[in-house]
C-alpha cells in the first residue's frame, strides 16, 4: 500500500509505524500507564488472533457479555478474538491436550487450582496480577492462593462461584423446624441440628440432598468445608499429610449417621445438576449449591403445587457449624496463558482489560450475581442490591479456604481434587462400602501416594 493510499484512509504509513511502535513499546515496557500516556491502544501483528477458552456460563447473559467484550477489545486492537465456550467438566481434557500438544487456546479459564498441575508450562503473569491487585485493593485470599505457586502468579484470579446451603422454607416450616429464619451470628445451626431436623424433613418426603459422586462442583463444595468444620484437613501447615486424625474419624462417623438419618441415598450417584433438579421438583428440602437453583426458579418462573413461585420459597443460609466452626468452599476461576501462545503480550493485555472495573462489573451484573469477583472490592458492588436474595452468598464469601488447606494449593492438592479422594472417603462411608475407620485408612494411603508421605 502506498503512502498516498494510506493518506486517503486518513493515516500514513509513517503515522502507523510511529503509533504502533510507541504503543507496543508502552505496552511491553510501561504497562497500562504507558499505554495511557501514549493515548493509543497497543497494536499487535496484522491479523493477530487470540483464542480464549472458558466455560459455558450458567447465566446466558454473561456469555453474551463476554463475547461482546471480546469483540470490542479485538476491534480496538485489530486482533481477532475467538472465544470458545464449553462445558466446565470438559475443560481439563481440552487444557491437557492443548498444553501437551503445545497448541491451542491463548487464554484458558481454570477452576479450583487446576492450572497448578501445568505450572511450568504457563506464563508468569505476576506483573499484571500484581498491578490489578494494587489498583483494586486485593484479591479474595483463597482465589489468590489458587492462582499462585512458589511466589508467582501463574493465573489471574477472575471470578468465584460461591456455594452455601439452599433451603426450601415451607418444607422446613411444615416439619416444625425454625431454621433458617432464626439463624444469627450468635445462634448458629450445627451439623447435629441438621441431622435432627433433617430426619423430620426426610420423614416428610423431603430429605437433605447432596452428591458425593465424581463431579467437579457440588461434591467438592460440600465435602471440603464439611471436613474442615470438624477440624479435619488433608495437610497441616508444614505440608504433611494430616488426614488420619481423630477429627476426621469423627467427621466420617457423623457423616454416616447424617446420611442414614437425613439425606437422600440417591446422592451417591448424583452429578452437579442432580441436586438442582431434585430441589426444584420438590424432592429435597436442602442442599449445598451455587445461586443456580434460585436463578433457575426465578428466570423460568417455576411454580409449586399451589401455583406459588418456588423462588420466593428459597432461603440461602451458611453451612452448618461443626466443632471447628463454620467453613465454606467457593470455587475460584482464574485465567492462565500457556507458554506455547504466540500472542502472550496480547493475551496479557486482554486479561488486564477484562479485569478492569468497566468490564468485570458488567460481566458479573449481567450474569445475575451467579459469580462473584476474585477481588474483594466487588463485595460492595451494586450487583448484590440487584439480587438481594443472593446476598448471603456475598456475606459468606470470605469464609472460604483453598484446596489443600492448611497446606498450599499446589499441583498435588489439585490431584487430590481431580482424583476425588476426600469425596470418596465420604462416599465409602455413606454407601456402606467401608467403615469410617477403613475409609480413613484408605484416604490416608491415597493422600500419602499423592503427596509422597
Amino acid at each position, binding site marked *: 500500500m502506498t503512502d498516498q493510499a494510506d493518506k486517503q484512509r486518513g493515516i500514513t504509513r509513517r503515522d502507523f509505524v510511529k503509533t504502533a511502535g510507541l504503543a507496543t513499546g508502552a505496552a511491553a515496557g510501561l504497562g497500562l500507564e504507558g499505554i495511557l500516556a501514549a493515548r493509543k491502544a497497543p497494536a499487535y501483528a496484522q491479523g493477530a488472533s487470540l483464542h480464549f477458552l472458558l466455560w459455558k456460563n*450458567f447465566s446466558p447473559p454473561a456469555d453474551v457479555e463476554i463475547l461482546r467484550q471480546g469483540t470490542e477489545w479485538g476491534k480496538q486492537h485489530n486482533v481477532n478474538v475467538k472465544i470458545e465456550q464449553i*462445558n466446565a467438566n470438559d475443560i481439563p481434557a481440552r487444557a491437557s*491436550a492443548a498444553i501437551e500438544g503445545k497448541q491451542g487456546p491463548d487464554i484458558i479459564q481454570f477452576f479450583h487450582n487446576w492450572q497448578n498441575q501445568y505450572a511450568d508450562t504457563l506464563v508468569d503473569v505476576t506483573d499484571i496480577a500484581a498491578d490489578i491487585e494494587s489498583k483494586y485493593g486485593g484479591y479474595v485470599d483463597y482465589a489468590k492462593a489458587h492462582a499462585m505457586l512458589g511466589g508467582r502468579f501463574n493465573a489471574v484470579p477472575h471470578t468465584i462461584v460461591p456455594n452455601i446451603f439452599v433451603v426450601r422454607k415451607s418444607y422446613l416450616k411444615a416439619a416444625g423446624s425454625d431454621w433458617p429464619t432464626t439463624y444469627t451470628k450468635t445462634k448458629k445451626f450445627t451439623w447435629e441440628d441438621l441431622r435432627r431436623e433433617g430426619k423430620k424433613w426426610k420423614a416428610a418426603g423431603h430429605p437433605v440432598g447432596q452428591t458425593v459422586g465424581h463431579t467437579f462442583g457440588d461434591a467438592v463444595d460440600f465435602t471440603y468445608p464439611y471436613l474442615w468444620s470438624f477440624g479435619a484437613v488433608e495437610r497441616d501447615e508444614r505440608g504433611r499429610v494430616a488426614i488420619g486424625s481423630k477429627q476426621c474419624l469423627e467427621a466420617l462417623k457423623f457423616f454416616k449417621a447424617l446420611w442414614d438419618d437425613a439425606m437422600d441415598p440417591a446422592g451417591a450417584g448424583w452429578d*452437579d445438576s442432580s441436586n438442582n433438579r431434585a430441589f426444584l421438583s*420438590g424432592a429435597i428440602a436442602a442442599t449445598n449449591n451455587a445461586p443456580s437453583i434460585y436463578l433457575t426458579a426465578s428466570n423460568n418462573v417455576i*411454580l409449586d403445587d399451589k401455583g406459588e413461585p418456588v423462588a420466593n420459597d428459597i432461603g440461602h443460609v451458611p453451612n452448618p457449624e461443626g466443632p471447628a466452626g463454620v467453613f465454606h468452599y467457593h470455587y475460584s476461576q482464574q485465567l492462565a496463558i500457556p507458554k506455547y501462545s504466540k500472542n502472550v503480550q496480547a493475551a496479557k493485555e486482554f486479561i488486564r482489560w477484562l479485569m478492569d472495573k468497566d468490564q468485570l462489573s458488567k460481566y458479573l451484573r449481567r450474569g445475575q450475581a451467579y459469580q462473584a469477583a476474585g477481588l474483594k472490592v466487588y463485595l460492595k458492588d451494586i450487583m448484590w442490591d440487584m439480587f438481594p436474595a443472593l446476598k448471603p452468598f456475598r456475606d459468606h464469601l470470605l469464609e472460604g479456604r483453598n484446596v489443600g488447606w492448611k497446606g498450599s494449593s499446589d499441583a498435588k492438592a489439585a490431584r487430590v481434587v481431580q482424583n476425588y479422594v476426600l469425596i470418596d472417603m465420604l462416599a465409602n462411608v455413606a454407601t456402606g462400602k467401608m467403615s469410617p475407620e477403613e475409609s480413613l485408612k484408605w484416604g490416608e494411603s491415597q493422600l500419602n501416594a499423592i503427596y509422597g508421605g
Partner: protein
Amino acid sequence: MRPQIGEGFGRRLLVYHLPLFFFIVFTLFPFYWMFVTSIKSTHETYNRSVNPFIPVACTTTIVEQVRTFHVNGPALMDDCLFHWRYLLRDTLFIRWLQNTLFIALVSTFISLFAGITSAYALARLKFRGADTFGVLIFVTYLVPPTLLFIPLSDVIGDLPLVHGNLLNTPWGLIVAYPTFLVPFCTWLLTGYFRTIPKELEEVAMIDGATRIQAMVRIILPVALPGVLSAGMFAFTLSANEFLYALVFIYDNANKTVPVGVVSELIKGDVFYWGELMSGALLGSIPVALIYSFFVEHYVAGITGSVKG
C-alpha cells in the same frame, strides 16, 4: 409372526404378542421419554405433582385447537415446540448434524476399505506372524481413547493442511477415528471372512481370476452382510464419539452433535433438559434410519450366516 395351523389366539397372545409388547415398550421408552421431555416446559419438567408421562400443557393446547378447529401456531410453538425452536434456531444444531454425518461417513468408508483389505489378508494369506498380527490389531482396539487423545492431539497438530494443520477441522477427526475403527473393522471382518469357504475363490482363480478379482467379485458379495455390519458399527461409533471431537475441534461451527449439544446446553450445573432431549432425539434419527434400512443384513452379519 405367522400363526401356525391349530395355534389358538390365547397361545399366540401369551407366547408372542405379550412378550413382544413388553419388549417394544422397554426398548422404545427412552425415545418416548426424550420426546415427552422435549415438548414440556421447564416448569412442567420440574413439577412432580403432574403426570410425568404426559405433557400436560402441550396436550391441552392441541386438544383445544382440535376441538375448536382453530390452528394457533404461536401457541403451539410456545406450549409444545419451545425447546425445539431454541435448538434449531438459537444453536448450530443443523450444522453439527451435517458435520457429524460427513465425518462419520468418510471415516467409515476409509475404515471399511482398510478393514476389508487387512482382514482379507489375515484370513486368507499365509505369512509368518499372521495370527500374532491379528491379536495385536485387536489389542490396539482395546487401548482407551483417554490414553490416546493427548499424543494424537500432538500428531494431528503436526499434520499440515492448506492454511495450518488438521486441528479444528473435520479432517482431524477423519484422521483420528480410523485409529479405533480400522482395528475394529479388521477384527470383525477377519472372523467373517474365515467363515467363507476357500473353495469359492479357489474355483474362480482356477478359472483365471486374479486374487484381487476373486476377492472383489466372489468374496465381497458373499461377505456383504459382514461388511454392512462393520460399516454400521463404525458409523455409530464415529457419530457418537465425544472425547476426540471435544479436544480436536474449537469452533462452534465445526463441532459434532455429541460435543455441540453438551457444550451449548449444559451451563454450569444447570442442564437444559428440553433442548438436550430434542437434540438427543434428532441426533439418533440418522443412526436409527441406517439400522432400519440394513437390519436384515446386519443380523446376518453378526450371526455369521455363511455356511461351509
